């Protein structure tokens, strides 16, 4: 039996005239590190708060381990939250903060002392019992917040962008720690973030949300390499989008025409015709010297710009079809010099090229035209 299994059915939340969460269906099996990823305003935090109990759903169900808790008050749900600003009680010290839930549950003193001690060990803060939260660093406060929530053995731990207030290096360290913690404790972690790199590195599975709806659910590899909508393609990493005309589709391969060039893409089971978009990730584009062997999916192009980012180079190439595509080339001391104006050949491997119906989940900006110098900074 899975513990911490969440099932959201047609969950909706309206504020005044706005639908913050629009009839979403989501299933999270127990024991997973599951992320809700999306830009601000997409409804991920509202969804989390409804699961926690701080917002009443307008309609829909929140089934936790078989029971619908949508209208249960938050203090009666077996769900605990790590808040964005930690919300450590300023008037209590670390010990009393962590013990708070146990005291509410009227556990005996000896048991409380024992469990608080173990919780502090778990987050590596033993000895900090007497400190006040104002005397702790950001990272330490976050760990106290974790301990405070985990000590109650919830079925699900909700985390609302807990690493947002920390600097980059600390964030990376804590991401690893959080992931390890989840595997050690074994309960469901439901993690809300707008940072796609964070979601990709930590999650077992994730859901990409936009404007109150779930665009795609899957494991990080699937979501990144097989985006199902324009929005997902664009939000995660840099996408190179090209407009194309569909020639034929099938489940094994599709043929499209881009400005006179015929390209083959991966198969799809969508039944579409007419205009569509094709997308390829920068690291899959292969740059071949100008005039080398031709073959399927090759387009001539010219280097427009090169951006050096340390471990790799972003090579922005203007293809003969007119678009600017961004390729990511590892710095292996390659022989081919990429300078502005160098002519070369773009190879878009068939299994890296994906067909997306035009118009579904339109991205806020088509990144294919204006390459982002920071691939980690998403939409």
């Amino acid at each position, binding site marked *: 039996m899975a513990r911490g299994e969440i099932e959201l059915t047609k969950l909706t939340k309206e504020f005044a005239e706005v639908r913050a969460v629009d009839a979403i269906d989501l299933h999270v099996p127990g024991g997973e590190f599951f992320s809700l990823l999306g830009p601000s305003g997409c409804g991920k935090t509202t969804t989390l708060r409804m699961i926690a*109990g*701080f917002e009443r759903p307008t309609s829909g169900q929140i089934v936790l381990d078989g029971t619908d808790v949508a209208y249960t*008050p*938050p203090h009666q749900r077996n769900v605990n939250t790590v808040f964005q600003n930690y919300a450590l009680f300023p008037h209590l010290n670390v010990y009393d903060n962590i013990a708070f839930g146990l005291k509410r549950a009227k556990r005996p003193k000896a048991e409380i002392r024992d469990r608080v001690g173990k919780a502090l060990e778990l987050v590596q803060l033993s000895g900090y019992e007497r400190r006040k939260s104002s005397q702790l660093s950001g990272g330490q406060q976050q760990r106290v917040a974790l301990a405070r929530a985990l000590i109650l053995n919830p079925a699900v731990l909700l985390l609302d962008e807990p690493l947002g207030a920390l600097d980059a290096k600390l964030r990376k360290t804590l991401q690893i720690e959080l992931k390890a913690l989840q595997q050690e404790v074994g309960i469901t972690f439901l993690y809300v973030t707008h940072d796609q790199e964070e979601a990709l590195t930590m999650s077992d599975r994730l859901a990409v949300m936009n404007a109150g709806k779930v665009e795609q659910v899957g494991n990080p590899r699937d979501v990144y390499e097989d985006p199902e909508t324009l929005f997902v393609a664009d939000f995660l990493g840099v996408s190179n989008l090209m407009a194309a005309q569909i020639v034929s589709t099938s489940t094994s391969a599709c043929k499209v025409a881009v400005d006179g060039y015929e390209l083959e893409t991966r198969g799809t089971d969508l039944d579409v015709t007419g205009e569509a978009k094709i997308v390829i990730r920068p690291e899959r584009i292969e740059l071949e010297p100008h005039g080398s062997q031709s073959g399927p999916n090759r387009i001539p192009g010219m280097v427009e710009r090169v951006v050096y980012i340390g471990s790799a180079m972003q090579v922005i190439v203007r293809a003969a079809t007119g678009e600017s595509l961004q390729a990511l080339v590892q710095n292996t001391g390659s022989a081919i010099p990429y300078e502005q104006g160098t002519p070369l050949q773009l190879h878009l491997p068939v299994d890296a090229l994906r067909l997306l119906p035009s118009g579904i989940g339109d991205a806020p900006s088509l990144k294919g035209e204006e390459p982002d110098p920071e691939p980690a900074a998403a939409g």
Partner: protein
Amino acid sequence: MYRRWLWPSLSFPGVLWLIVLFVVPFYAVLAVSLGTVDPILFQPVPIWNPLEWNVGWLQEALQRLAPGGIWFDVGIRTIVYVALSLVLCLLIGYPVAYYTARHAGRWKGLILILIILPLWISYMMRMLAWVNLLQADGYINRFLMFTHVLSQPRDWLGGSSSTVIFALVYGYIPYLILPLFASLDRIERSHVEAARDLGASPWSAFRTVTLPLSKTGILGGAVLITLPMFGDYYTPNIVSMSPKTSMIGNQIDLYFHGGPQPTLGAALTIILAVFLTFLMAYYMWSIHRAQRDVGAVGAL
């Protein structure tokens, strides 16, 4: 998370209290001023039913305030006193607030305490202080005679308009400086620096950036002091026992404690309250406009 009826219930005692002891009394003033007077006992007879209200006394009060009426001078004088006091308070208070907010540096905390201090010193004590100084044999006269500005002691406390205005300024200026300071303090340094960067002289930067951005503070402070000032009667009474300097407040005070003619006093109170409501509406509208233009966090 909380029951929906919790917050209205918590508010209930306070709102009830204010209705019973603030709104209802105000209605009582209306009822008295629009009532009649018992001819034998000279007692006011309030009329509680709005349909039966008698505007006679209100009209009488309005006539007395109109040009030619016996209160006309008092009304004009009140407006003049308040206006002059407000201007003086601004002229003195603005530079002080400005310096404290923007240039005080490490002195800021100390100066702030010294500026807030008068707010906690009893108003009466502050007036008492000046009455002592302005006595015939007080320090002011002695100093002025010592420096040969005066040849004999001057009677400051016998009915002098300038003394009253001086006292009003002294008494109310702390209440202007505080909101002014708060508003000036909130102005981002970078706005002024941007103006200087773009070629504005210090004075010009002040005029085109700081001053407009402090408008809500000026208006808020102005409201905060002129509204009570219009009802002030004790300040003229303390520093000048003469009817030559009486304000509207004195008139009301007279009708309740001197006369008594409470109905007339109530009528005058209503007129004053209505006048102040117009003034307040004007201020609120100006603040709203200034807020909208500038996007600053507003007063009230």
